[in-house]
């Protein structure tokens, strides 16, 4: 049994009210809940109040954006997004990445906004409270030592949002509402280098929509995972070929998705191997995951044709 701790629940009708409530002490925004609520059960978060975004109309729908792009509501369910005709026609890699999340049922519950705001993950962190207590917790939760890199000062919990590598390559911009006004942050600048403070958006900010500019070139997306369903990625790879050469974003290998570029395919692979360093944040062997960065990147380049 993993009962919820006590918290209260609010379901505001307006973005202004949602932002006011989410700025309260120990308040958290709740979207699909597929990652947040298991984590609350594991006592990784102990909110006093959960603020549901379910009734916020501004978070729904897909509409034409500026410059031939699309503006996608953050409350769009992942299954709506991967089946949306405009998304499939104009951003097929985004549709594919969205359809790779967890399971079909979780895609019907989870939202685009929830995926962008997903907590970083680590095998020492995403565990029941009793499991963590046996180890004395970790840097990200309750403890003082990182079990992945005990001599390091930082937290290496892995960014695991499936839609983010593609949105990063597309140059998408996350549009937030806050108590002090609206805020636009490029997805490429939304994440930081420490697994505890990985989000560069201010606390309590409500992700309202994501602006996706018109795609310039095709993108190939690959997700390496243990099983064909449910599992988070072990290596996420998005790659595109532009006039100057290849550009790729690799994720699930640290707190922040990593962008690399290279004039040729081999230069891209070399650039990636120079900066991408998977650590023991997952059960799978680190040398194998490091090798798979190269393999997945080559496969993705091959899929570009």
């Amino acid at each position, binding site marked *: 049994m993993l009962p*919820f701790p006590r918290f209260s629940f609010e379901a505001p009708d307006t973005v202004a009210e949602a932002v006011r409530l989410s700025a309260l002490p120990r308040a958290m925004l709740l979207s699909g809940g*597929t990652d947040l609520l298991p984590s609350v059960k594991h006592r990784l978060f102990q909110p006093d109040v959960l603020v549901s975004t379910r009734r916020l109309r501004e978070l729904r729908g897909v509409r034409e954006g500026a410059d031939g792009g699309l503006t996608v509501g953050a409350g769009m369910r992942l299954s709506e997004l991967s089946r949306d005709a405009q998304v499939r026609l104009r951003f097929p890699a985004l549709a594919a990445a969205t359809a790779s999340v967890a399971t079909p049922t979780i895609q019907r*519950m989870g939202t685009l906004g929830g995926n962008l705001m997903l907590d970083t993950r680590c095998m020492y962190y995403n565990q029941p409270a009793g499991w963590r207590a046996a180890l004395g917790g970790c840097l990200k939760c309750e403890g003082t030592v990182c079990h992945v890199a005990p001599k390091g000062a930082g937290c290496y919990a892995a960014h695991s949002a499936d839609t983010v590598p593609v949105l990063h390559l597309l140059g998408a911009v996350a549009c937030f509402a806050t108590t002090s006004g609206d805020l636009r942050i490029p997805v490429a600048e939304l994440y930081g280098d420490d697994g505890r403070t990985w989000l560069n958006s201010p606390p309590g900010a409500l992700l309202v929509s994501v602006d996706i500019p018109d795609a310039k070139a095709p993108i190939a997306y690959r997700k390496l995972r243990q099983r064909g369903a449910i599992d988070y990625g072990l290596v996420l790879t998005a790659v595109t070929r532009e006039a100057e050469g290849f550009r790729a974003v690799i994720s699930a290998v640290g707190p922040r998705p990593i962008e690399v570029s290279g004039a040729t395919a081999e230069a891209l692979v070399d650039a990636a191997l120079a900066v991408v360093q998977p650590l023991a944040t997952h059960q799978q062997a680190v040398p194998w995951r490091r090798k798979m960065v190269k393999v997945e990147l080559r496969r993705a380049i091959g899929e570009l044709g």
Partner: protein
Amino acid sequence: MTTPTTTPMATTRVAQDLVLELLVNGEPTRRLVPGHRSLLEFLRDELRLTGTKHGCDVGDCGACTVLVDGEPRLSCITLAADCAGTAVETIEGVAVGGVLDPVQAAFDAHVAAQCGYCTPGFVMTLRHLFADNPDATESELRTALGSNICRCTGYVKILTAARDAQRRIQAAR
């Protein structure tokens, strides 16, 4: 007690508890619930609808799958309060007048249950799939079943039953 809400199907704050109004298997239902009550606890412990099973508790296994406004939801990681004003369907609401629906009938015909604990979740997932996509391909069928886990590993019989259920539904059109 607070004054009853004038808006039907609304959630109103009462100290820590909320007035929750929703339809459960077509029955208008009104209860006081705390904000942290899961839909699974609400269905099993308060309404005594124990057909929905309590499995992994964190949204991995699919045993607690119910339909909320026709969409599959993992009730262990859904808050009851977040279902205000919705129509919830559980396994108890599937058979009409004691007559099994095509998915249940196919599971019965193919004995697609060993311990049976995962079965209500599989039935709800397949009911949604065939309502959403009655002509699902074999690949779509297998992908959809990725939402549910059977630890007796009886997947061959479950797949056989699912294909048969699809034929029964197509034949009835």
